[in-house]
């Protein structure tokens, strides 16, 4: 698509679309950050307590600590 041939109105709608996409992306990012932070905090806090389940969920198990 050659932007120079596009009429101004369409440029505007395109711009709006991009702006909304950026907003959604930011929302998604913050959502993921929140979800992952919560999960990692819960997991690291309870990993030792969960015993076997905690170990099976993990890919690297630290040496010498519960």
């Amino acid at each position, binding site marked *: 698509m050659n932007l120079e041939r596009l009429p101004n109105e369409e440029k505007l709608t395109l711009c709006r679309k991009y702006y909304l996409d950026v907003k959604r992306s930011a929302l998604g990012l913050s959502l993921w950050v929140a979800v992952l932070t919560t999960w990692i905090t819960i997991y690291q806090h309870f990993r030792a307590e969960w015993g076997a389940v905690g*170990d099976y969920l993990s890919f690297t198990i630290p040496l010498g600590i519960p």
Partner: protein
Amino acid sequence: MDFTSHKWISNLLFCWFFIGVSCNSVEKKIYVKLNYTIPCVRLLNATHQIGCQSSNAGNVGVLHVLQTEENLDWVLRSGPNPPYMVIIDTPLFTRSVMMQLKNGSSRVAGVAVVAPNTNPEKSFSPHTTCPNQNTGLYTETYDPSLANCNTTVWNPLGNGLSYEEFGFPIFSLKDDNDTRVMKQCYFDHNQAVNGSTQYPLCAMELFSHMYAVTDTATCMRRNALNFEAEPDKVCDPLGDLNIWSSTRPINNTEKGHKKWESVVIAAARLDSRSFFYDIAPGGQSAASGFVALLAAAHALRNITQETPPNRTILYTFFQGETFDYIGSSRMVYDMEQNQFPLDLDNVHSVVEVGQVGLRADSDLWLHTDPVSRKNDSINTEVQALIEKLRLAATNLSVTPVSPSFSQPLPPSSFQRFLRARPFPGVVLEDHQSQFSNRFYQSMYDNNEYLNVSYPTDLTPDQQLEFVTDTAKALTDVATLVARALYMQAGGAEDQLVDIKADPQIVTRMLYSFLVRSNNSWFQQFVPAEHASHLKDRPMNMYIGPIQQFSEPTLPVKYLLAYLTGSVVNVTQENCQNQRQDEDDKRNKHFYNYFWVQGTAPPNSTERVGFCVRSTVRHSKAVSPAFELEQYTTADYSTWTESRWKPITGRIFLVASHELEMLTLAVGIGVLLTSLFLTYAISAKADILFNSVREPTNATY
């Protein structure tokens, strides 16, 4: 061109070499490495972890030599430079001191215990007061009144330190030059003047980071989770081999019940431990018993060939008994599962030789199980066995005596057989109730404690042959055991006078196990490939992890073969292929052939080997818990040993925190200044350098 590049490379190499050398020497200038350190390591069972460990990066602390117990206040509260690395001499290595250090562990970086060159006057046993409390015979269901050492506390001197968990490393140091350097470093730098100390201070760093944690179930699970990123295991089961042989050849290939076979088991234990990893002399707690049994087996060699009794005598040497009866529980399990050449129906009775090295007077105590003796037929057989032991003692300086009827058995392998079903049997010990051993399962349970010492002017070969009083006393026990076994197996009473243990053999064995296994006698009956394993020091009788042999296992195997087997005229090739000649396909099921290195004839340096044929075999001494993958079972031993990073220690001087910060600040300052200068110079480069170049341009 070639030439110049060559020159460059050689210059570069020279620079690297120079840097390498100078770095090395800087490290040497800063650190003094400790050469001889024995760590305490982490062990785990179904419910606990015990032992010691440092953090991943090692523990560093300012040295403090603890002189009295009151001095602890400096370490735990008043000292201004925590954490401390505490050096203690043996008299202070007590439960009270260690538990205070353990509870103040945020101010304690580690402990170094200076082991004395001679045994302490008092007692010291880091074991528990009731060894193998939960895996023996006397459970609440068997007899509540006998459970948990209710009637007899076997090891009242035990302080339980070996079964504590410490959050810091604990090392043992020899009382030698290294230790003196360390103490001198403390006295030069760290001793407080008027309650304050001046930097630089002498500090020590100990590394002993353990991989396994929590309990055996956790570490075995993590062993199984084998990711590519971390292919390493974190712990290994304790395990080794039981050694056994029989007076009549038994088909070892066919497992399970043997028709018409009835065996008398003659048992002893092979292992011991101490608080520290690689020092477990086990003189009284293991060697006294198994040496007596080996000597008895030797005394019975000829007579069991010439006038064999009706029953077979099965000599068994159990490994790992210290850790909840690993060896005996496995043999009983194998017999129950038809994994052993015999089963429990083949077992007639059990005679066990326990701790027998310290008889103060002539008494030898015959311990029996009061619960199984409530059964009349068992009781009759036990009484008959006791009678035979009394008869066997005729003309010996040993008096067999029975303790009170209601007293339970001391910790012994026989308990694991009785757990399966009642058998008649006796455990021989030198103590009536509590152990006579003041150093049970400690580093002092050594040759010195057993009085296995020699006049100072003897060469090693003369010491090997010197018959000590301990050897004479043990010989009498061995003779008694041999005669009793012969009668118990159905042998005739009139043969007894011919059964005599040899004090020469006993003294050589004591020397080999408790002083030096690398000696001319041992060398001749081990295979050549094993000769390098013999050491110029006492044997370490800690069982260790499953992959490596404990030090006494194979020597006992070869020794048992040499003492009970016969030298046969077989070529080396046939011998190593377990056969009498090329067509022989049968004997390997009944006999074991060892090609041993022998001795060199007087006019030669080349050893002349020979073939020893015997009925000696080994069987696994690994707890059934690992076979069944039941890591939380209470019925079997679940002990595992953690793996660890290389264990090291070093001492060095540390500067005060202020000086460290000042150095850092100056460094950052220099960096920032140089950055600024570089920027300023490059920004003004036109002005700074142009004026020099201009005149040269002008000449054009």
